[in-house]
């Protein structure tokens, strides 16, 4: 019984942590290029509404509808990211306020709700969903099987993307250029790296990833439309980037930690464990603050710090 609870909690941590992985991975790319995007929450909702729309309005086999739905989610969210990219990279406005504007514009009371109302979404669960599947045939392994290999395809793809993104950032020429753009755009520019283009591409990629994070909600977790269904997970993703010191591997650990915390209320309650609601509901948010306080201690920051040019617009004439 105890063993069983352990498995349920860990499996749920991965399941509920998956959207956090996508969203934070995208934000890592954007921030590595020097652009903070506080619009993650809004972009996730854009992705969720796009995916839900496709899954509701297209009839067909899951193998066809779901990929289109995910691509739609990526495009919707990247569209939001494009506004932020234009304002912060080309017009060089304050990144903080622009990102907030994106979340207000796209968020609970904005475009996502508008589109959902327009398309009459949320009346019933979507027909095609990402269900749990035993992709590798390892689902019967003791303990690890039900925890790791009874997840959705979205989770398996997220693992692949975490590995690929890590390799991209730390082992490729483009990744080196990306880091240069985020650390010292002047230097990058002087050796012929197109700073603005790099920033645009990574902010857009970050948006696309946030879109998949939204799709996790509307195609798997809920799986339908509800206004503001991401419940602040986009903001937790932003904290996870700091928690993971801008590294995909460390971020993954944090995402599952928070996925576990967010899922505790469902897993424990279903089993009749008595813990005050107030405590469970606020736990992920309280933990985010605690973790931020711990990692923002200056010694840790000096060693594994944020990109030096994070938040600073780049203009050539300044040299």
């Amino acid at each position: 019984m105890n063993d069983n609870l352990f498995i349920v909690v860990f499996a749920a941590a991965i399941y509920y942590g998956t959207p956090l992985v996508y969203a934070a991975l995208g934000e890592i790319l954007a921030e590595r290029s020097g652009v903070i995007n506080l619009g993650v929450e809004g972009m996730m909702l854009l992705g969720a509404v796009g995916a839900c729309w496709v899954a509701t309005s297209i009839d067909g086999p899951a193998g066809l509808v779901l990929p289109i739905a995910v691509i739609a989610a990526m495009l919707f969210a990247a569209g939001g990211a494009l506004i932020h990219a234009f304002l912060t990279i080309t017009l060089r406005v304050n990144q903080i306020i622009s990102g907030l504007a994106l979340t207000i514009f796209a968020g609970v009371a904005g475009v996502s709700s508008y589109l959902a109302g327009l398309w009459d979404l949320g009346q019933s669960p979507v027909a095609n969903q990402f269900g749990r599947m035993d992709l590798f045939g390892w689902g019967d392994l003791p303990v690890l099987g039900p925890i790791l290999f009874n997840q959705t395809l979205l989770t398996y793809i997220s693992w692949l993307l975490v590995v690929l993104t890590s390799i991209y950032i730390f082992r490729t020429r483009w990744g080196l250029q990306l880091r240069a753009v985020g650390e010292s755009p002047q230097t990058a520019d002087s050796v012929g790296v197109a700073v603005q283009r790099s920033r645009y591409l990574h902010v857009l990629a970050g948006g696309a990833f946030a879109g998949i994070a939204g799709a996790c909600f509307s195609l798997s977790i809920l799986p339908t439309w509800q206004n503001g269904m991401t419940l602040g997970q986009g903001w937790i993703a932003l904290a996870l980037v700091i928690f993971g010191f801008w590294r995909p591997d460390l971020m993954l650990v944090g995402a599952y930690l928070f996925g576990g915390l967010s899922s505790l209320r469902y897993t424990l309650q279903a089993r009749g464990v008595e813990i005050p609601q107030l405590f469970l509901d606020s736990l992920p948010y309280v933990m985010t603050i605690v973790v931020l306080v711990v990692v923002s201690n200056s010694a840790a920051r000096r060693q594994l710090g944020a990109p030096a040019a994070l938040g600073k617009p780049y203009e050539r004439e300044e040299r």
Partner: protein
Amino acid sequence: MMRTTFSGFRLEPRSHLPRHINWTVPIGSFFAALFAGALLLLVTGQNPISVYQRILERAFLDTGSLSGTLIAATPLLFTGLCAAVAFRVGFFNIGGEGQFYIGAIFSSGIALALGRDAQVWIAIPAMIIAGALGGALWAAIPGVLRAYLRTNEIITSLMLNYIAGVIAVYLIFESSSFWRDLEGTGKMFPKGKVIPEVAFWPEYGIGSLVVPFGFVLGIATAAWIAVLQRRTRFGYEMRVVGGAPTTARYAGMRPGRVIVAVAAVSGALAGLGGAASVGNFRHILDPKGMQQSGFGYAGIVVAALARLNPVAVIFVSIIIGGITNAGYALQGPDFPSGLVGILEGLILFCTLGGEVLMRYRVVRTRGVSSNVVGAQ
């Protein structure tokens, strides 16, 4: 190697900033946002003219509409001041929402505790003080963390919004707390206890217009903030810390203390908004209603459009309050939901963009250049 420049134009700083920027940017961005919103409505098959006409009627023109607008403008005035004060100093307090909730919890709590035998002149000031205190304490958390542990205030203040929301919901829906009405229909449907009538904030009738006491208090507060910023030592310290933290330290100021103080003042303003909302309008602690309104977040839009000027916040809060009020009044099949947020977001985008276009000149670049991604 041939270098590809990213776009076909660049921005050149203007040597001389025109004075009219203070009103041309807000007005220009407001109308640009309306235009962009109209395009969105058109593309999605709505008639922008009739939608805007209905907003205008329900916000300002219909009989009684302006009174409704002031009801929405009152909390926005306070949350707008909350953001304006903090952003000025570079303290990005996104926590106005949570500070508003805590203000509402504190002020409704004190009103309930004082009971129906309290004097009006005690009950109302007690609510004002309790609301401000609650907001200040809640905002002091990210303030202290930022000032002394260098923790990013954006995310901590935001997380505290969710925690404050969870607390408010807990008090009404998940516990038998002091705030909850446990008699009558309250047994069946969880709701807040109505505060005693002596604690209802007054309203002033001017012809057909009803001006809530909270709005008057807001105007007085805005004036006080303006004086505080321009005429006091604390205001001077805020300007220096906001503009040049290192200079502030050399000048013997203590940036940490200033930041905590600014955070507390900013939170107190949002908390006052929560108190006004309870005292003037809702008369109960209403977690769902507060969460749906999102006045804390909208306050950021108000502050940005007012270019962080406290006196301008008064006027902007009436405009944004009008849109919000129309959004409530027009909920239904022929008025798209989500339009209020869209307009607010667009207004913010346009204010940011407009600010840049006023500060810089757009200069076309010649020679090797290629347009890559939608830079126009």
